[in-house]
């Protein structure tokens, strides 16, 4: 029934998923002594702390509230004491500081009182969206976009197809795969709730065809509900990117600069769906997530259910520790993940995996000059010309780079993956996009200050005029009657 269309370009990296795909998720990890919760682990503005240093908190208690319309709540992953609210090294390649809440666990792991809930499907969509917001849920596939915002945006459109993204195209990662196998019923339940919220016509759970077990599990779980279709999409990086998945499932393209809403489609990751199920069915806020801990340098790779804020070191320890010094330590998949500055970086809401890769797996080499072979052009799933984009970005000619497609680039890394010259194409694009962002900010600041200045000049003029008028009035007054006070002075 779905005109499964192939996507353009893309690559077929070695998946290496068999390292973890056959092992069930480790759930009972030893409780870390300290948890580090950065206040900004979602797209948008930092959340605002609601507790003070020294306060006792219970597991699931709200500790920081959403800081604006685009932000998310934060909850205590375990019970304990707020030890500090201070800058820590952010789990980010820059290694810059970010303010985080440090929770010292008391070892009891005591939940706050969980509300008893009615069947969410009886509640109004708006109320459910509020609860999703309350639970602090963000896009768990790595996009970390606040889920409630997405749901509310979706409500303003006529959504024909809700796509549940279980394609998980990144090599190594199996957190979604395992989740689908082990929690199929919960995911189907979550999908029904989202469908209820956005009033979608139909639900499609799209899974790459290298995950037969997950497909089977979901098919079985979805069988009782007619509106939920479980389909396979070809194993093809970057199938998990929303734009590509939409194309593969519906045959439609999201207009450039637009959103999937515009064509009546909404995409949610299975991890998000599971979190929504947890929040709406059980009243549990988002305090943990499944993380794939893998790579050749990890002794026994595993998926683990980790509390947010757990240092990466603890996760690796739980998987038997490192067998060798990794060439790269990453958060996320190898294609789009990021290096982390320290093994003590905490797990955040968007952490899909922790990868300790050796040099053979990373296969990095010094870059050589571009030979214009055009493999990047063939590999680009967006139909851009990466080699020209990189060349012009390198020469700081961003207009030309835009012209060759920089603004449409999704930074999937397919081009850099196939480049025989090992040119770090994505880094060129990150650089150019950053520079352009800076420039835009600069321009808007200039406009802003110009406006401020005009306002000020106007005000100064006005004040001057007022002063002059007052003086005049005073003079006139003093000419008429000399007040005694004045004559005294």
């Amino acid at each position, binding site marked *: 029934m779905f005109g499964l269309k192939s996507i353009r370009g893309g690559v077929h990296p070695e998946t290496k998923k068999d390292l973890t795909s056959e092992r069930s998720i480790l759930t009972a990890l030893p409780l870390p002594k300290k948890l580090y919760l950065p206040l*900004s682990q979602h797209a948008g503005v930092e959340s605002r702390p609601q507790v003070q240093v020294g306060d006792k908190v219970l597991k699931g208690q709200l500790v920081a509230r959403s800081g604006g319309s685009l932000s998310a709540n934060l909850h205590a992953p375990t019970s304990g004491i707020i030890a500090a609210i201070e800058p820590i090294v*952010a789990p*980010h*390649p*820059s290694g*810059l500081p*970010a303010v985080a809440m440090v929770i010292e666990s008391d070892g009891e792991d005591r939940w706050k009182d969980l509300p008893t809930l009615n069947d969410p499907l009886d509640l109004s969509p708006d109320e459910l969206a509020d609860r999703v917001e309350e639970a602090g849920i963000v896009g768990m596939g790595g996009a970390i976009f606040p889920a409630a915002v997405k749901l509310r945006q979706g409500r303003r459109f006529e959504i024909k197809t809700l796509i549940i993204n279980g394609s998980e195209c990144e090599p190594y990662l199996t957190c979604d795969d395992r989740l689908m196998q082990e929690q199929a019923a919960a995911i189907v339940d979550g999908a029904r709730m989202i469908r209820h919220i956005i009033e979608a016509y139909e639900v499609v759970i799209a899974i790459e065809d290298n995950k037969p077990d997950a497909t089977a599990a979901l098919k079985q779980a979805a069988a009782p509900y007619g509106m939920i279709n479980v389909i396979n999409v070809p194993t093809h990086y970057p199938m998990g990117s929303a734009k590509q998945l939409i194309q593969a499932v519906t045959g439609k393209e999201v207009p450039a600069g637009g959103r999937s809403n515009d064509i009546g489609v909404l995409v949610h990751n299975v991890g998000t769906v599971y979190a929504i199920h947890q929040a709406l069915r059980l009243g549990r806020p988002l305090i943990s997530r499944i993380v794939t801990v893998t790579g050749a340098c990890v002794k026994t790779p595993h998926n683990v259910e980790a509390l947010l804020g757990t240092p990466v070191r603890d996760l690796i320890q739980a998987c038997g520790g490192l067998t060798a010094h990794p060439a790269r330590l990453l958060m996320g998949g190898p294609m789009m993940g990021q290096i982390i500055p320290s093994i003590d970086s905490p797990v955040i809401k968007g952490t899909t995996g922790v990868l300790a890769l050796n040099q053979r797996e990373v296969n990095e080499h*010094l*870059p*050589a*000059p*571009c030979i214009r072979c055009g493999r990047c052009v063939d590999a680009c799933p967006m139909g851009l010309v990466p080699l020209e984009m990189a060349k012009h*970005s*390198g020469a700081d000619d961003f207009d030309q780079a835009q012209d060759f497609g920089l603004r449409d680039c999704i930074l999937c890394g397919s081009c850099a993956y196939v480049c025989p*010259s090992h*040119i*770090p194409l994505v*880094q*060129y694009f*990150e*650089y150019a*996009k*950053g*520079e352009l*962002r*800076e*420039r835009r*900010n*600069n*321009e808007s*600041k*200039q406009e*802003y*200050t*110009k406006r*401020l*200045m005009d*306002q*000020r000049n106007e005000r100064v003029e006005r004040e001057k005029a007022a002063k002059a008028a007052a003086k005049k009035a005073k003079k006139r007054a003093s000419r008429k009657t000399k007040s005694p006070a004045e004559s005294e002075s």
Partner: protein
Amino acid sequence: MFTATLVLTALGLLLGWLLGVAAKVFAVEENPIVNEVESLLPGSQCGQCGFPGCSAAAEAMVEGTAAVNCCPPGGRALTEALAELLNVDLNSLGDAPVPQLARIEASLCTGCTKCYKACPTDAIVGATKQIHAVISKACTGCSKCKDVCPENCITLAPEPVTLNNWHWTKPEAA
């Protein structure tokens, strides 16, 4: 000889007349380029370029005595726009000065409001006898506040790198 002179003179007169007429018929009003340059400049009259105000800087740029990248608040975007307008080769320019932001050292501030009054963009908040603070979003780094501060408690520094404005650096060329 005579014909030659006559022909050339006639030709010259004819063409001259033609051009004269053309100049009249096809005359166009043009916006002096200085105005165009000035409209691009931030207009905060901050003087960081070394000229007294933006219009003076615009004149100097058009004359070629000032580099198009001499305006720190305008940044790279302004430089490119000016280079395009004035037909300057971007590569011939040296490094541009970095835009600065003012910062008030709270422990030294007495709340005298002098800086508050001097700020051309109202970027300093605070009332009399209260510690002032700079709204960095509105600060152009013009250093006027620094010049009037009696306590020497205002410093100018480039905008700090944070997680919000950090981005990858350009890879080293192969």
